[in-house]
């Protein structure tokens, strides 16, 4: 076991994938010599060469479009989108092409492409550097969407994503890049990409979170006095592991979903709708959601007010517990 930051764990995961399978390629803006603006691809170019770790022109549609072509030729590209807010120029490539090519060709053409996206707020950035666009992709059939919440999980998840024969949107919680954990670099077991993980057992209420909000949910659970909170790390945003959530809710009878993305039409909506359908007579309170407001992501001096924090999670837990 080694203590690593999440950024470094991802770097090691990429290194391992590049080493294990020479069809793997890394591409994006500034991923080579610079090692990426967050250094997640640090030194990969010098190790694996400029024809496997490629600095691309500044064009996101071009990055994803050429990566699809590489995949059709038999490669397994891993693309970096520099920041969440810069994925939209590639939206057509992702939702109309990447997501649909397997289905369109009746399974004849796979596009095993991983798109890494540092996402979310809390780092005091200028506009377009703090967004949570995951729901756009989670609602798109044909894509897998995942988010890691800790260094150890990040290390295996990125390798699983690259091994997947499906396209994977891999959302990295940028404000947790520098959080450390023990990582087993030789670890071979992994939870896979589709399974949610119960991180903390509890009996009174379930809190589901993913990515950057997992740490927040755990902190809130620890502070919730007199309430036993079960915390689930969703991990996979599409598909969603409803079975794990349902099992928990059948025990706790209450559910809160937390994400940075706006509540309106965020993942919490789907979780609330489906869990309510499954557990209608077992729920003692409506599923409550904590998330961003229905506004654009604000200027950084306001982000503390926009983002869910321990207080808002606690407040929502209380509101749920208060329903009789």
């Amino acid at each position, binding site marked *: 076991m080694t203590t690593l930051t999440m950024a470094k764990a991802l770097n090691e995961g990429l290194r391992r994938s590049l080493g294990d399978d020479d069809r793997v390629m890394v591409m994006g803006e500034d991923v080579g010599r610079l090692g990426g603006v967050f250094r997640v691809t640090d030194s990969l170019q010098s190790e694996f060469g400029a024809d496997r770790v490629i600095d691309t022109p500044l064009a996101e549609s071009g990055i994803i479009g050429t990566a699809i072509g590489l995949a059709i030729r038999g490669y397994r590209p891993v693309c970096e989108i520099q920041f969440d807010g810069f994925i939209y120029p590639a939206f057509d490539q992702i939702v109309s092409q990447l997501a649909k090519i397997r289905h369109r*060709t009746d399974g004849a053409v796979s596009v095993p492409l991983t798109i890494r996206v540092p996402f979310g707020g809390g780092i005091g950035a200028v506009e377009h550097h703090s967004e949570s666009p995951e729901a756009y992709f989670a609602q798109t059939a044909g894509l897998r969407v995942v988010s890691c919440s800790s260094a150890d999980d990040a290390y295996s998840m990125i390798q699983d994503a690259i091994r997947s024969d499906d396209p994977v949107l891999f959302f990295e919680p940028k404000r947790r890049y520098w959080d450390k954990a023990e990582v087993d670099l030789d670890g071979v077991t992994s939870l896979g990409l589709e399974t949610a993980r119960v991180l903390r057992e509890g009996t009174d209420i379930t809190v589901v979170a993913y990515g950057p909000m997992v740490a927040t949910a755990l902190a809130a659970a620890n502070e919730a006095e007199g309430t036993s909170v079960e915390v689930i790390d969703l991990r996979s945003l599409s598909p969603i592991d409803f079975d794990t959530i349902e099992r928990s809710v059948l025990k706790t009878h209450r559910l809160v979903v937390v994400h940075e993305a706006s509540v309106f039409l965020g993942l919490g909506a789907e979780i609330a709708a489906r869990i309510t359908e499954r557990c209608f007579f077992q729920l003692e309170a409506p599923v409550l959601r904590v998330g961003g407001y229905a506004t654009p992501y604000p200027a950084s001096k306001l982000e503390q007010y926009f983002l869910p924090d321990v207080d808002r999670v606690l407040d929502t837990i209380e509101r749920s517990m208060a329903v009789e």
Partner: protein
Amino acid sequence: MSITAPQRDLFEQVAIIDPESGELIDDEIYSPYLADIGDTDLREIYRDLVVVRRLDAEATALQRQGQLGLWAPLAGQEAAQIGSARGLRPSDFVFPSYREHGVAYVRGVDPAVVLRMWRGTTLAGWNPRDVNMMTPAIVIGPHMLFAVGYGMGILRDKTLNSAVDDIVIAYCGDGGTSQGDFSEALGFAASFRTPTVFFVQNNQYAISSPVGIQATVPIVQRAAGFGVHGIRVDGNDVLAVLAVTRHAAERARAGDGPTLIEAVTYRMGPHTTSDDPTRYRDAAELEFWRQRDPIDRLRLVLDRRGLADQEFLASVDETADRYAAEVREACIATPDPDPISLFDNVYATETALLAEERTDFADLHGLDLQGSGE
């Protein structure tokens, strides 16, 4: 090795067949690419042109009779398609747009299979791996970039095995050149020097929009802006198209990078069977282009060489009729897809959500799930 041709005046189109005499013009750069084209080849090319026009007409008829939902006729663009497709090797890869029925024909796609997408029994049609040709691209733009990425893959393959010399070609129309993806493709191709041929069929219209809305200078000029080699060719001269495609392919194989070919041609029919071209173009224009018919152009060559005897022409007609009849029959006989196939191939491994929906669907429709699925 470096194969370059001086950039010609951009308004000048490469031509091989003299449209008056049917003689072959001696072009210093491009004629050598036709050195191996003998009488038999000329006849086979002619046969291709006639057959794909006949198949195209048959498809239009099938649409009118309700057997297809839609059809995008290629009439007028036979030379651009047959000429370019014949300039490739089977191991080269093709990214078509939605009108490249002629290219598909040369690649060996069963014409009846081409119709399936238009009939609505499948989203695509054929297995791209079988013919090294992707299924049609309906959204205009993205696939031009696929061809660059595919070319990057070829280059990487080449670093592992120097014998690899595949190339890749992508087709789009004059309208398609306005999409950002088209320009990004030129830029990436230049930066990575990929073995990619961009083949633009400038058929003068994007649905109702004349090419002047897309470009105020010849489209081929786009190439030089990105440091890509550009060639403008008479798209109704099948031999010229064949020669320039071979030239571009040879450059690509040799490591000299991408080429943009603008084939100047004309869409004789409607944009699709849903379109009414009389709303936006007139009879005189149509007549102007009818005089430049690509099949007539090659026929001049055959006539001049005495290759178009009755026997040959009858055999061509026979082939065309036979294919058309086969296609008609196969099209009408195409079975509707199995309803439950809706859920197939969304993911490599089916998700729980899809499995649940598949089961609900089977329940709702009283289907037996045994044996279905992936």
